């Protein structure tokens, strides 16, 4: 088992109002089989034993599916590996004596709670505004009761792969949430279950997105590069299409 030692420059911030700063830490030996978050666990153990305040960071499932983790590592959201969340990023991608600058996802809409932990509630509010379908509860419907073409279901599921981690917002030079909203709109707009709310949904979700303080999309494509789930900007075009359709062509 090979180990490496790292120099970490980590953003430390007491709470959302206090001004933050970078602190530099030298790690002990880090196994290259560890994930990035396990490396932070080891650092926190070291800090706790030294009587210092451990680094607060977001994490939950550590399987790459919950959308809770994420920091900016040397200028890249979720670090250097493509389509990989921070928890699934392994230390074998780093070299001995590397210096890593670790910052929280930065956006006006994502206030810092402490250190690397951020408040992503604005994404939840966008979902509350329209990211749902209305069905009557009752017995479970038969499988395949509603026919859906395989290609369409695939496209909807590709969009539904979005875990809402906010890396698109973090990577966007404008801190725009259009890739997130595009994915959510697409996955519901492509399926028959999403049709009843098709006209209201884009209007409500975009209105909520704007009021949460995200920036505007300028088609820079950084979001697509940073997305750990490989969500395409094709979804942003569909959001634009669905929005304009709802705004100008809807009969409701």
């Amino acid at each position, binding site marked *: 088992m090979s180990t490496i030692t790292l120099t970490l420059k980590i953003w430390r911030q007491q709470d959302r109002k206090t001004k933050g700063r970078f602190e530099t830490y030298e790690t002990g030996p880090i196994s290259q089989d560890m994930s990035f978050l396990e490396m932070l666990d080891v650092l926190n153990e070291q800090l706790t034993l030294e009587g210092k305040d451990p680094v607060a960071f977001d994490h939950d499932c550590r399987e790459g599916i919950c959308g809770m983790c994420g920091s900016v590592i040397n*200028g890249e959201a979720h670090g250097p590996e493509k389509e990989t969340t921070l928890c699934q990023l392994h230390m074998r991608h780093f070299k001995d004596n590397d210096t890593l600058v670790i910052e929280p996802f930065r956006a006006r809409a994502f206030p810092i709670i402490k250190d690397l932990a951020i408040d992503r509630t604005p994404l939840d509010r966008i979902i509350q505004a329209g990211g749902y379908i209305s069905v009557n509860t009752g017995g479970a419907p038969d499988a395949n009761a509603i026919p859906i073409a395989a290609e369409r279901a695939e496209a909807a599921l590709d969009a539904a792969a979005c875990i809402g981690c906010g890396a698109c917002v973090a990577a966007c030079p404008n801190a725009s949430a259009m890739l997130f909203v595009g994915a959510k709109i697409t996955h519901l707009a492509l399926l028959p279950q999403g049709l009843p709310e098709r006209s209201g949904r884009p209007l409500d979700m975009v209105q909520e997105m704007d009021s949460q303080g995200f920036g*505007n999309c300028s*088609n820079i494509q950084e979001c697509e590069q940073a997305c750990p789930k490989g969500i395409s900007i094709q979804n942003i075009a569909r959001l634009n299409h669905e929005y304009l359709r709802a705004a100008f062509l809807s009969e409701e």
Partner: protein
Amino acid sequence: MLTSSIGKKTVMAISGAMLSLFLLAHMVGNTTAFFGREAFNGYAGHIHDLGGILKLLEAGLLFFLLAHAGVALLLYLENMQARPERYAVKKSSGSGLIAQTMPYTGLAILIFLIVHLANFHFTDRTTPPSEMIREVLGRPEFALFYIFSVLAAALHISHGLWSLFQTLGLSHPRYNKLIMTGGIICGIAVGTVFVLIPVLAVIYSGFLL
């Protein structure tokens, strides 16, 4: 609807499309300069003979320019505010380099437009157009300024044309490559024609004589 983020982007897309159409027409018209003085002055004469229609087109152009520049400024300011604390380290993938310079190439075009109109529009209009070109672009400092401005415009529309389709939601995997390539070809065409005129004016003393 137009005050929402997507609404503002739609205003940018449609006004940008109109301005691009004008630029393409302007480019095609200017190719007459390569066929000599008579061809160019004849073309300019035809345009001026349009009279009332020309005034209407000019008013439309001014309207779209004001909409495009005004909403651009608003979007720029909003986007600045969306990230109050900058990253200490930020790596960009490079795919959006032209997109990120849109506000700056846009500003360069606006400055150029003022100089360009002062040179050729708000000036003594009794001199034949071919003579005006020889006078203004014969001076190397003006020629250089025109060349740089045209390159900014070429970059601006090479991203703008694809961006226009994306913003209006007209995107399909089958046509995306075509649209992107089309934008770049338009950028190169506009760049080539408009750069050739000041270059010829400087290096070829018999240009438009």
